[in-house]
């Protein structure tokens, strides 16, 4: 029997004013797994992340859909219950550690505040816990560092402090929105290793939001590829990288130059994806159609749903590239 998923997002529609940022998104996350949400700017991944904690800015609205966390619909909770959830059962790590930390407070109070807003314990006990947390995220000399200000820490360390705050109350779901984009590549590896380690230690579900397919192939269990507010493809990581089906997924994989490849400018051009993201704005059908080499007329009018393709776990929103035996299912 399939264990009930930790997070079950269904038919999510998010708008900012008149613009639709997310148009009908479904995905699930199971306990203890890392799901990567991949896409470029404007695909709706950050809006999705914020909506999970109901942290959308005033201009943003969830127009339709449900977000079930352990069977409770987050969108229907009262604000008071929401506050208990944030930082408690569901936690988030953001991209910019420089601006996410309060620069006029030392690290200690920021962590203990996070702890004490969910647990009634004394300041002394909270401080001891904070030092433990700093150890957990591998900050050397935690008992000394706890009294330092954010500006005396490096970017990688600040991000670790953010992670410490996020896991302080043992969340069951951790959302990491581009957690390493602002960090150097040698530090990225350290931070992701830490997140993965914590995921296993605390049996958390990890939602990893990123635009970097390399990170996805190294750290994710399952992948959802987004474009123009919709899901184009979803698959376990091995399946996605072995046989990507959606033209956007394939384009994305082909166009970033890889260390493993021998492609050199003298002997070949980089494969391109023509056009730009802006073209997805008002398209009635598949948002990728304006840039897609295999687009048919029907693609511009009919919005494709994600359907199983081959593998049961491999979903594809593209009638043109569906494997032959399932082409009939799209009609």
């Amino acid at each position, binding site marked *: 029997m399939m264990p009930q998923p930790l997070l079950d997002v269904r038919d999510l529609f998010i708008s900012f004013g008149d*613009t639709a940022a997310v148009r009908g998104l479904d995905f699930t996350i199971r306990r203890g797994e890392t799901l990567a949400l991949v896409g470029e700017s404007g695909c709706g991944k950050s809006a999705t992340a914020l909506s999970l904690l109901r942290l959308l800015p005033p201009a943003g609205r969830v127009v339709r859909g449900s977000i079930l966390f352990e069977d409770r619909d987050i969108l229907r909770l009262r604000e008071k219950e929401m506050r208990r959830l944030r930082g408690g059962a569901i936690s988030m790590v953001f991209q910019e550690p420089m601006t996410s930390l309060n620069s006029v407070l030392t690290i200690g109070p920021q962590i203990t505040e996070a702890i004490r807003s969910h647990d009634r314990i004394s300041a002394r006990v909270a401080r001891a816990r904070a030092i433990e947390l700093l150890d957990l995220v591998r900050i050397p000399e935690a008992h000394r560092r706890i009294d330092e200000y954010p500006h005396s820490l490096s970017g990688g360390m600040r991000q670790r402090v953010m992670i410490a705050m996020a896991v302080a109350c043992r969340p069951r779901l951790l959302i990491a929105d581009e957690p390493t984009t602002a960090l150097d590549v040698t530090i990225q590896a350290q931070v992701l290793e830490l997140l993965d380690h914590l995921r296993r230690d605390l049996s958390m579900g990890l939602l990893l939001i990123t635009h970097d397919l390399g990170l996805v192939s190294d750290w994710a269990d399952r992948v959802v590829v987004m474009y123009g507010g919709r899901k184009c493809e979803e698959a376990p990581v091995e399946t996605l990288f072995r046989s990507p089906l959606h033209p956007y997924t394939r384009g994305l994989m082909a166009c970033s130059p890889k260390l493993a490849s021998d492609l050199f400018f003298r002997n070949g051009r980089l494969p391109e994806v023509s056009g730009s993201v*802006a073209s997805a704005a008002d398209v009635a059908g598949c948002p990728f159609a304006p840039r897609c080499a295999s687009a048919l007329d029907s693609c511009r009018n009919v919005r494709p749903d994600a359907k199983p393709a081959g593998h049961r776990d491999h979903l594809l929103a593209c009638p043109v590239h569906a494997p032959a035996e399932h082409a009939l299912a799209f009609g």
Partner: protein
Amino acid sequence: MIPRRTPLALFLRNPTGVAGLSILLLVIAGALLAPVLFPDDPLDMVTRPFVWPLQDAAYPLGSDSLGRDVLAGIVHGARVSVLIGFASTVVGVVIGTLVGATAGYFGGRTDDALVRLMEVFQTFPPFLLIIVLVSITEPSVATITLSIGIVSWPTIGRLVRAEFRSLRERDFVLAARGLGYSAARIVFLEILPNATAPIVVTTSVTVATAILNESALSFLGLGDPNLVSWGSMIGAGRDQLRTAWYLAALPGAALVLSVLSLNLVGDGLNDALNPRARGR
């Protein structure tokens, strides 16, 4: 895609800004039309003294202690206020912008020297300095305009300097330097167009301050003796506050309305030009 909202459109959508602008336009209209509406010298004695407002249809706002038409005085006074207010602000903005831009862009010793200069001017109580400058010369529209302008430039100068200091580090300025542009071209054609927002906002406040300074001068009898201004009317009505208080109150109200309208316009401009107010 959220369409870009132009500052003008944003300003016009702001009710207080529009209200302020309407009053201001009324004042300016009065100033421009004064010679048409009231062709005679407002200092002429035209009727008996102390006619109260709304008593006589020919003189809707009454007459003063010498039988002069109060309404004519107010409309001509608007002319003086508007002229001196705007002209002195132009002087102040031009000097302030030149000094601030030079200090902000070049930095180093030039900046040090110019900042000292601004500080020197700012250590004087502004109004006293105006009185001193006007007393040294003959009080006339030109000297009053210059004096007020000279006192107002340091505020603009500091503002412009701050803008230039931050903008000069931007990549597009670096690109301009890389292309071999001269300092003058960079200051005036590259940076200045991007520094106008705070200047525009401060301008309206500067005009308001100038009008108040001018009124204070003429209240004290130090203004141009050949002109009627709101300050001089208030000064003249000072002795009749108990009996004919309208003589001070009416020009006072005109003054308050003008200054208020400028402040409202300034607020409206600030909201319209402040990037955070614009949708992203």
